[in-house]
């Protein structure tokens, strides 16, 4: 059997005495779309930061197609084919939408080909009409798409999306779900999201994080019925 696309072995991140992420064993197949849910502080974003070289794990390892990348630099991991859309949109605020996308696309392409790809990407993320506006002036939802466009332009094999639907209107959420499904036709994704409606629009397999560990991993319909999952999400309300 071929190596899975992504695998973590006992992956842990400890900040002082706090075990933000503890012994995560996670496997993702080629072309898979996985949703990651869990309450705030469950370690989802820390997990993403370790996968992308922004944090060096305390111990354990990350294997991407069998290669250990747990100590690689962020830019090396990006070049291997893992792209991330961070929780707070991380874009080039001072540059125009077009310049943003161009910067990402020009790592792999040059000249006329880049310009063509940039135009295609602007259409795809639906921002062609604001292509020459500075990204800093755009609404939150649009900046989310700019970031998505940036990541897609580097043609990654695996996309990590940290709350891609946060701060979006109902209509925008639908559009984003559609885009995620379209991306999944050719690429693998891991999506962190709180919006259960969004999850049910896109998910097949769901992994639930709680207090730095994997609580349960199952198909989406089972997860939504799982009393344990309901408890950790509604626990506070039940106490109140």
């Amino acid at each position, binding site marked *: 059997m071929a190596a899975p696309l992504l695998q973590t072995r006992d992956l842990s991140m400890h900040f002082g005495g706090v075990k933000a992420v503890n012994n995560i064993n996670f496997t993702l197949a080629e072309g898979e779309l996985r949703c990651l849910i869990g309450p705030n502080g469950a370690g989802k974003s820390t997990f993403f930061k370790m996968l*992308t070289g*922004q944090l060096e794990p305390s111990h354990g390892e990350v294997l991407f197609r069998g290669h250990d990348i747990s100590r690689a*630099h*962020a*830019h090396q991991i*990006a*070049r291997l084919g893992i*792209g*991330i859309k*961070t929780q707070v949109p*991380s*874009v*080039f*605020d*001072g*540059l125009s939408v077009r*310049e943003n996308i*161009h*910067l*990402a696309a*020009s*790592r792999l392409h*040059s000249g006329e080909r880049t310009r063509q790809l940039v135009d295609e990407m602007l259409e795809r993320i639906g921002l062609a009409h604001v292509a*020459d506006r500075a990204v800093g002036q755009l609404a939150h939802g649009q900046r989310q798409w700019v970031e998505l466009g*940036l*990541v897609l332009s*580097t043609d990654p094999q695996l996309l990590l999306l940290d709350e891609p639907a946060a701060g979006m209107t109902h209509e925008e959420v639908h559009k984003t779900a559609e885009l995620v499904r379209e991306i999944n036709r050719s690429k693998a994704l891991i999506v962190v999201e709180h919006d259960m409606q969004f999850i049910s629009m896109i998910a097949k397999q769901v992994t639930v994080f709680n207090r730095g560990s994997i609580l349960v991993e199952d198909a989406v319909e089972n997860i939504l019925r799982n009393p344990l999952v309901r408890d950790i999400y509604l626990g506070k309300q039940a106490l109140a």
Partner: protein
Amino acid sequence: MSRRSLNLVGLVAVGIVGLAFLFLTPRLAELDTVLDLTVYMIMAILALSLALIWGYGGILCFGQAAFFGLGAYTYAIAMFNIGESTLPLLLAIILPAAFAALLGYFMFYGRISDVYLGVITLTVTLILFNSVNSTAGPEFHIGAARLGGFNGIPGIPPLNWPFNKSAPIDLEGMFYLSTASLLLTYFGLRLLLASQFGHVMVGIRENERRAELLGYDPRVYKLATFIVGGALAGFAGCLFANWGNFVSPTIFGLAQSAQIIIWVIVGGRGTLIGPVIGCIGMQWLSAALGANQPSGSSDLWSKIFANAPLILGIILIAFVLLVPKGLVPTLADIAASLLRRRQRERRGLSPQQAE
């Protein structure tokens, strides 16, 4: 009119004004004016070096004077030892660039944060100042060149035509050389900024983490930018040592370092023409204020106006508080908003005309 065509108009305008200035000045102006203008041109190259690394690279270097001074001293020392200026000129570029590479390597690969970067570069400059300042004795010499400590090195031989020792460049020649160098530096940097390298450099300034997550190694780009800035400053230093035939440790001083930053702040970060204008304007102003020095007793106001550092300080504070983006970006903003308003008015009129 799109941003690209506006850009092109700007480039052509700078080219025409620059060439006219280059060829007409020596024909129209007195020699002492030409001499003054020469040093403005040299300092403008120095301003461009910081405009690149701070304005576009986002690296706040308080020690650009270190590379400038190294260039000047390298040229002087090499000249006394070699006597023919081709190699000294190259050394005055290569040595500061190599020093920038070494310093930059430790700063960028050591992931030193921005604030400490400023502190380190300033400290390096002051260390150089103190070291060179205390080399007054005859025992301090490199080959035939005496370092001279706080007295500096006088009588530096002038540049000559490449590989032709018997054809030194005269004062007017220095004006042509400095002005042409400034123009070449300006257009060269414009080319650099229009390249893929330049785009990534600006991207890193805007959001280093994002650039990294897209697969660009910020350390490489910052280091390369820093080296180019160091080489340019060294080259300006070489021209400066030629201009006065003299170099002293004040070239490494706090005042010199601060001055370069002031030029960039006043002219505007994120532009190239801004720091050039800022540099020339501020120098002209200091010269004008200095010439105003009252002889004997005079009233309070003329004393205040004759105090150049005071006036320049007030100008700096005024700019930081009132025009924080600097002269050129602010003017560009005003022009852009006027243009938008005119377009809006025209659009507002046209439906009525159609009726």
